[in-house]
């Protein structure tokens, strides 16, 4: 038998595929281990965990069998099996069995992936596509994601080749997206549209603020006092908005103070500017906060937060509830008008909106006495300026990417009767005409002019194609695109249209849409791409391309320096947003709305702050190269006032996120106690240790639990306050078929029971029926509370290895003790994200080498990031 084992090992070493073996044909060392150490529980009779090792052969070409044996190997190797209460196998028993398994599984993995590389061919994700177009054409805010079908996910990320299928729908959408981009990119006028600066008041015609001031949800202020020309709504509201408009009551330079937050029926839009020409715009506004006291303006309770948003007008643009995205949260200090300036990209028919984000949802319209009977916090907007479009060069860079320095000239159809005029978008028709800004029309048709079209096309495409395809382009390939230009010119297109045709074809070609990576070791261009799509989610810039061209990017020092440069670049914000967005599932933050009665203090501002905290925390760990144990335990948090109040931490003012040292007795610190993670792992009504525990196992420790058996129903939440989730789960855990997995999954989740569905700390569950009256605590006095305090929370638990904890702090200490596990998991997550393929069994040694290196130099996140990028796994397809 020893001979057979040796022969098997030899065949593996020689690269011969291991044949399928019956249980009896397994090597003696494996059979001995099974019969002496495993068969008690995993034989045909007991079959614990539905596993009968005495009957299982080893057909490693079968995916299911392969996965089962990988699990067996990993659990035995980690010392989890045989379980602690059983006697440990000796080294002599383990070593040959594990060695054989490792070698055989690796060989099977090699055979499975032979010739394909680790990563299968994969296309750009929606996010990558949009960023690539933005950077290629210098159109930093063009909105393309929404045009494309959503991507799937595999192994936790949408970048995985398994998730990136392509269909005719994708293809038709790529054509649409390319056309939209080219419409914006190509200059169609001799000079840039005139820069217009429009000052608006919130009272601007067509908005909802006028009616809100009429009914007492806002007031008009002059020199920080009620405007005598337009007094606050008192015993009677102001009636007849049309009459007020006709009398010019809303055409005022007075400030507008708002008490009421945005809701389903109220939106605040600055209707003075509706974008005609997509581009960069400078937005300036003046904000301050005050306490309104029945007609008096008094100092505010502190610095309030105003949300500014870009509103994407739909249909005819009237009314509210148009989609919007946050531009930022801005300080409104007490009685101190403060100007904020931001440069933003606005697309057609976008305008600026705002919301008094830090205020509670109050409404005076139906309250007796309206504004004159109200006392409470408010934010004032003095004005807002929108200035643009801002073009520092003309034609814009987007145009030069395609046409270089060729001149623009007027196209006279009569001079070229055989040539079709270029395509033009009628902005006048598209524009909703809701603002005070005006069209700046151009007369005639202006287009790029070439004296020698084919020679110019060849020259221009020689520059454009390598940029778009992110690698050198052969003469043959370039000539195919030049031929497209030639064909279009012959069919009567003008030079611009012919070039546009060729560029559109390039943007819809596999060379653009797919990541091109040679099998085996990446060349410098493929490395530049992988690095760039990892840290910038977009194409390589000039410097990366230059280094790739010089063939020096692979050099360890150069690569290291480039990673540092890329992290310092503002484009790294895409990595900070996208990676935790998928790894920690932050993209699902709005997947459910917390129950309004149970969690009345929840607000969109709190939710945005949660995500901002986790992103800022992740950036802080990388920037400061902090120890990976900070993922689960730390003495600081990244907070703004909203979160600090939510966490019960004092001394933080305003909406800006900053590093805050946590008090000694604080239970916060690390990802697990961040409200974002706690909300994502809850369902909006109740928490359960199961999804939270599974999240910790899978995302933080890298030990994903088995999926739940389909025959077992999910535990239904109980919001009546009679049964705790622990009591409900106890029944479930008593079932032997469930107990094994739940003993591993639930403990971290039990420790997190001290945190509710919005990440607030609790010692008792909130209930809608049974329980004691709840104290208000830090909940805003303008928010009415009706929930009760139900049964007490029990956050104690015991890890599968027998270590007990009494709360999340002790769990954090236990988790942080295993730094290697945290390093290994993050390395695997980064590698999966960056390479588009899950980590295979055969990659284990390479991952361990990364972990060893990072651990040796302090286990910092940036150290680990460098080690990942320098690794063969990263640099090989």
């Amino acid at each position, binding site marked *: 038998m020893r001979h057979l084992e040796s022969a098997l090992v030899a065949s593996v070493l020689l690269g011969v595929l291991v044949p399928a073996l019956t249980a009896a044909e397994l090597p003696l060392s494996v059979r001995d281990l099974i019969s002496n150490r495993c068969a008690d529980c995993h034989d045909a009779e007991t079959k614990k965990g539905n596993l009968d090792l005495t009957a299982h052969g080893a057909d490693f070409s079968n995916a299911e069998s392969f996965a089962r044996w990988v699990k067996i190997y990993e659990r035995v190797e980690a010392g989890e099996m045989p379980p602690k209460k059983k006697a440990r196998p000796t080294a002599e028993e383990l070593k040959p069995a594990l060695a054989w398994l490792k070698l055989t599984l690796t060989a099977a993995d090699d055979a499975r992936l032979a010739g394909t590389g680790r990563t299968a061919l994969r296309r750009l994700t929606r996010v990558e596509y949009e960023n690539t177009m933005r950077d290629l054409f210098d159109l930093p805010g063009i909105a393309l994601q929404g045009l494309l079908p959503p991507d799937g996910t595999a192994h936790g990320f949408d970048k995985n080749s398994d998730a990136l299928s392509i269909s005719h729908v994708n293809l038709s959408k790529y054509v649409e997206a390319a056309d939209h981009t080219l419409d914006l990119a190509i200059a169609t006028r001799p000079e840039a549209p005139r820069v217009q600066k429009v000052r608006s008041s919130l009272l601007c015609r067509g908005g909802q603020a006028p009616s809100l001031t009429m009914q007492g949800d806002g007031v008009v202020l002059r020199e920080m006092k009620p405007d005598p020309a337009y007094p606050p709504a008192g015993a*009677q509201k102001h*009636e007849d908005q049309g009459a*007020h408009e*006709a*009398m010019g009551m809303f055409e005022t330079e007075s400030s507008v103070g708002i008490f009421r937050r945005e809701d389903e029926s109220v939106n605040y839009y600055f209707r003075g500017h509706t974008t005609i020409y997509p581009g960069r715009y400078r937005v300036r506004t003046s904000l301050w906060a005050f306490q309104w006291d029945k007609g008096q303006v008094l100092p505010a309770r502190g610095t309030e937060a105003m949300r500014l948003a870009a509103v994407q007008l739909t249909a005819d643009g009237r009314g509210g509830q148009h989609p919007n995205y946050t531009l930022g949260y801005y300080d409104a200090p007490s009685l101190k008008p403060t100007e904020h300036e931001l440069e933003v990209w606005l697309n057609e028919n976008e305008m600026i909106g705002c919301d008094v984000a830090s205020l509670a949802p109050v409404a005076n319209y139906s309250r007796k006495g309206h504004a004159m009977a109200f006392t409470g916090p408010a934010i004032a907007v003095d004005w807002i300026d929108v200035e643009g479009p801002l073009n520092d060069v003309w034609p814009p860079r987007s145009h030069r990417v395609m046409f270089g320095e060729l001149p623009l000239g007027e196209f006279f159809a009569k001079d070229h009767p055989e040539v079709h005029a270029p395509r033009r978008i009628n902005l006048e028709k598209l524009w909703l005409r809701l603002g005070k800004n005006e069209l700046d029309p151009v007369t005639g048709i202006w287009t790029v002019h070439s004296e020698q079209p084919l020679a110019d096309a060849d020259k221009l495409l020689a520059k454009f194609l390598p940029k778009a395809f992110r690698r050198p382009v052969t003469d043959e390939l370039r000539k195919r695109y030049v031929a497209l230009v030639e064909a279009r010119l012959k069919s009567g297109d003008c030079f611009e249209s012919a070039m546009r045709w060729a560029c559109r074809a390039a943007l819809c070609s596999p060379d653009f849409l797919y990541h091109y990576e040679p099998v085996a070791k990446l060349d410098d261009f493929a490395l530049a791409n992988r690095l760039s799509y990892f840290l910038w989610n977009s194409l390589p810039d000039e410097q990366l391309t230059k280094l790739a061209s010089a063939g020096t990017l692979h050099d360890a020092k150069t690569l290291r320096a480039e990673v540092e440069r890329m992290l310092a670049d503002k484009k790294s914000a895409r990595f900070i947003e996208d990676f935790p967005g998928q790894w920690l599932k932050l993209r699902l933050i709005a997947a459910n709305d917390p129950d309004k009665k149970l969690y009345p203090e929840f607000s969109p501002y709190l939710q945005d702050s949660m995500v901002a905290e986790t992103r800022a925390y992740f950036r802080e760990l990388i920037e400061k190269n902090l120890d990976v144990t900070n993922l689960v335990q730390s003495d600081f948090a990244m907070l703004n006032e909203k979160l600090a109040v939510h966490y019960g931490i004092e001394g933080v003012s305003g909406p800006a996120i900053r590093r805050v040292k946590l008090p000694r007795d604080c239970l916060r610190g690390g990802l697990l106690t961040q409200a974002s993670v706690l909300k994502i792992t809850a369902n909006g009504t109740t928490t359960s240790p199961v999804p939270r525990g599974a999240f910790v196992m899978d995302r933080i420790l890298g030990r994903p639990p088995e999926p739940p058996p389909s025959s077992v129903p999910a535990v239904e939440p109980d919001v009546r306050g009679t049964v705790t989730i622990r009591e409900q789960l106890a029944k479930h855990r008593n079932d032997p078929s469930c107990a094994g997995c739940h003993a591993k999954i639930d403990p971290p989740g039990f420790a997190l029971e001290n945190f509710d569905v919005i990440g607030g700390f609790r010692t008792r569950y909130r209930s809608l029926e049974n329980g004691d009256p709840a104290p208000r605590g830090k909940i805003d006095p303008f928010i009415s509370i009706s929930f009760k305090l139900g049964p007490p929370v029990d956050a104690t638990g015991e890890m599968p290895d027998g270590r007990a904890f009494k709360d999340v702090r002790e769990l954090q200490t236990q988790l942080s003790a295993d730094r290697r596990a945290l390093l290994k998991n993050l390395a695997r997550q980064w590698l999966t994200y960056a390479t588009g393929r899950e980590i295979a069994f055969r990659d284990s040694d390479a991952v361990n080498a990364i972990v060893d290196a990072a651990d040796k130099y302090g286990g910092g996140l940036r150290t680990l990031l460098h080690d990942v990028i320098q690794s063969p796994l990263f640099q090989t397809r």
Partner: protein
Amino acid sequence: MKTFLLILLLMIRVASAGEATLQFRITGLFQPDRIEDLRRQAGTLRGNEKDSPGEVRLTDVNYETSVATFAYDPDVKPFKGAKADKVVECIGNLLRGATKNTFNIFPVSALTPEQQKSERIAVAGLDCKGCAYGAYRAIAAIDGVERARVDFKEGRVTAWIDPAKTNRDALVAALKKAHVELVEADAAATNKLPKQ
């Protein structure tokens, strides 16, 4: 119709060489500062440069009687050769366009002041000029209201009406419909025409 044309012809006077004037009852003058609004918004009215280069000037406005006088050049488009009713229509269009429909013109009232009946109604909750205009336009639209005033500081709406066409109840109903709060007790006590 005949009466209207007669009134129209009477209104038309030649002011100076090449200029004619017209007098109208003007609506929208519900408080004294509206005279300034009228002068600012409608001091000079111009139409489309190409089709109607003619200019219309506000030469006089009498707040007490709500009568305004406009001058125009009858030898310039669109007035040249235009019939009298077309001239009035043109001036009305220009005025409404320039004042967001807050001013309008009608033939001067055929009733003497003595033939008009005044109605004073006490109101509450009119806080600003916008609210005052809302109350005003609710009653100014009633056929038979010759002129009206709203004093939001004093809480008073006053209308001079043609008793043959309308009455106090109609005024009250219109104000109620416009959500203007009436002070009924006060209304009864103060229903007396102020000296003009």
